């Protein structure tokens, strides 16, 4: 299980990562997260929406209502240029954190 803090910190980069591939709507985003993480990333579905709103306020994503294939109207989210830049920064940050962790957790070289 992932800690609450890590969940909170990773939500935005993950959403940006998904929207960087293609525009998408809320339910589908959640399904993708669940599918990719094999269930280890478990979000409370409703909590996604305030995050999306906040990201829209920050200008990282934009949204519009459109009818889906099933005829039901859906709010589609799309990443903005600012969002892409933000995503690049986040990704670099996560990579360096991961590198540091990987180095630190590697077995100590034997002393000879």
């Amino acid at each position: 299980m992932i800690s609450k803090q890590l969940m909170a910190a990773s939500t935005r980069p993950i959403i940006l990562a998904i929207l960087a591939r293609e525009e998408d709507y809320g339910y589908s985003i959640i399904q993708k997260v669940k599918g990719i993480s094999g269930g280890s990333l478990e979000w409370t579905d409703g909590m996604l929406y305030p995050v999306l709103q906040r990201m829209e306020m920050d200008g990282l994503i934009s949204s519009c209502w459109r009818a889906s294939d099933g005829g039901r109207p859906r709010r589609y989210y799309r990443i903005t240029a600012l969002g892409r830049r933000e995503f690049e920064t986040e990704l670099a940050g996560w990579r360096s954190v991961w590198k540091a962790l990987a180095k630190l957790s590697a077995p100590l070289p034997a002393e000879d």
Partner: protein
Amino acid sequence: MFDIEKAILEWKKSLHKHEAFEEGMVADLELQLRDIFAALKSEAVPEDEAFRRAVAQVGSPKAIADEYRKNRALAIDRRRPWRLSRFVPALGWSYMKTAWRKMKRQKGYAFINVAGLAVGLACALFIWLWVRDELSFDRFHQNAPALFRVEQDQSGGQGTFHVYVTQYPMGPAVQAAIPEIKTAVRFARAEGVIVRYGEKVFFENRVRAVDPSFLTAFTFPLLRGDRTSALKDLRSILITEDMATKYFGSGDPLGKTLTINGAHPMAVTGIMKNVPANSTIGFDMLVPLEFLRSLGVDIDTWGSNNIITWVELNNPAAAAAVGKKITQFMTDTIYESLRGNPEALARARSRRRPEYGLVPLTDIRLKAVFGFGQAIGTLQSVRSFSVIALLVLLIACINFMNLATARAAGRAKEVGLRKVSGALRRNIISQFYGESGLTTLLAVLAAVIIVAGLRPAFNTLAGKQIASGALLSSPFLLGILAAMAVTALIAGSYPSLFLSSLRPVNIFRAGARSGGRSSMLRRLLVMVQFGLSIALLVGTAVVYRQIGFMQAKTLGFDREQLIYLPLRGDAPASYRALKDELLRSPSVPFVSGTGQIPTFISANSWGADWEGKDPQERVLVGATEADFDYPEALGIKMAAGRTFRREFGTDNGGAFLVNEEVARLMKLRPQDAVGKIFKFDGVEGPIVGVMKNYNYKPVQNPLEPMAVIVVPEAVRFAILRLAGGEVPAALKQVEAAWRKVNPRLPFEYRFFDDDYDQSYRQYEQMGRILRWFAGLAVFVACLGLFGLASFLAEQRRKEVGVRKVLGASSSDVVVLLSKEFTRWVLLANLIAWPAAYFAGRSWLQKFPVRTSIPPAAFLLAGGAALVIALLTVSGQAWRAARKNPAESLRYE
């Protein structure tokens, strides 16, 4: 049976309990719920179970609502600091909107306000451009502040005579003697030379001979050539662009040779830009001063004052001290030169020596003085026009204030409501200033368009060459901003201060009334407006009358059909032959000649003497060297004695004709002066006749004493009287005679009339400008009156209705409504007349011959203003009076 729709509705209701949820957010969550539900159902989960799990998966409404609330708090907090709302006062947009709507709803008033202000501002801007151009004279030289002209005050019996010409050798002499002088530059005329290049031959009047340092002291733009060396060579000449085109067309003039007077080849060593319009120093060609020797000019003589001497000082602040030093130096020099002649030295010592002074180059255009203290500078015009510009602008501002206060009644309720809603006094003030600002802004835009469009017309009117670039210069833009700020402040002052002082209680209780105080003020303002307009009208009348007076004044000679031919090059040598040839034609009854332009005799001398003259007293007498027949050709009447006659041998160079002023100086009656021995200009001989005074200078100059002596060799201008009848035919004959005698010289003539008209041009321009601005002032004032009258007529609509119902006729109503305005305009004369009288009198002071200011001018100006005002008002009154009372009283 489980009803999913009902369940979702219930669930949504539970969401709405949290106020953080807005409609869109609920919709988001509902869709999420439905998607989960649909997915579970497709896995064959029973509906009620599927709904329960879906609700759980969406999550706790309270937790979600908390997140949304955080977002909202953040959104409010994050209003960007650069947003307009931080700068504009809280209600700024509301004020602007109100002002804009008011304008749209009352287009007429808005138009009057904007148009009046625009015309006023355009006038002010034009005059500002004019004044700026006047003030810019001669300032383009890099070291303009250090340049001074040497001038002198000569004293004698008639007072102090001021001249700005000096002796040829003075410049180098003072430069050598006085260390404060960095450079002295001499500037002399080489007038009437003939310049030839190949087949092209012209008389050139604006050839000037200068020291080589002229080019470095003054920084007239040089296009080609080298400033430091261009005039070093004795045979070098600099020409302006225009001259380059005139002689060389598109060819390269540099290094080419121009021939002066057929004998002196001069190499073109430089090309100057044309002398700017705002330069008091003018020339077309420059030659070295030393070259004048080749033209036979004695440039070593201390005997006469002929040229202008400029000095460049190391320290401009020392100008006064340097002037004193020059006086001392010149006095010493004169005494030194007379050392061998004790008698002359004693005489010189007994007299007052001329006093020299330095006048800054930048003061010359504005403050120049000539002769017996005549101000020939334009400072007075600059001052009066500036005042007029402000007056016209003031009249336009008064319009705005008047209309705004008149409409205050209608706005009082708005002010009351704003105050009740919490507006402070300063909020109201800023609102009304905002409105005047908006009106002013529109007016400024219109004014700038007017100025840009009418600039060429103004240039013609004022005789200026203001370039369109002047409209984009930063001082002009700053000027506009300043005018705008001043206008907005003045125009907005009364409405904002008055309306903001209203108390809501009074507004709503008693019903809004414009109050006695403001209608009193309006009356006063209209009076001021019309007072100013009438004063401007009277001023215009005075200027025109003076011009007419000067033009119509009997000059003392007959200038009709009188022409003169300048004799240049070697033409003076053949003057005799030309005269004989001309007299053969029946259309030329008289021919004579003089040494100077006959309409402006500038030579004069202090040396006149006669028997019985107080030796201590020195008098300045104008000197004319002329040919026989001089009074006859000009048509000058004799007061006593006879004119020159060829039969008397001594008349040729040994006798004088003087004017009545000389007789007056001699303290003799004209008939007694005849026969007296007169000494002047090195000639001693009897006065054979006294001519009646005539104006040998334009009549804005005072009459000065003058003596004529016959020296045919000195004639440089032939004077011809044409017989009545066909002038063009006569001119043809004159030209034919000229061609016969001087086949190689261009034929050129001028009418005396034209010269005189030219000398009035400055005043005519002033008159024309004044006429336009006076007219516009009246127009703007009437525009305001029109607005005011229509407003008041509107306000008294019901009163008019009642009066008509009770039997008043339309004309009664018109009289009633017009009466009030009539009184104000009549009262305006009380302000206008004294003001116009004193201003006009002080302007006329500067003319030695001046017209009076007739009472009729005041009556006419006042009458005209009244008629125009009445026409304006009664139109509105008539419209009000014609209204059907049934309509105006319908709502009672």
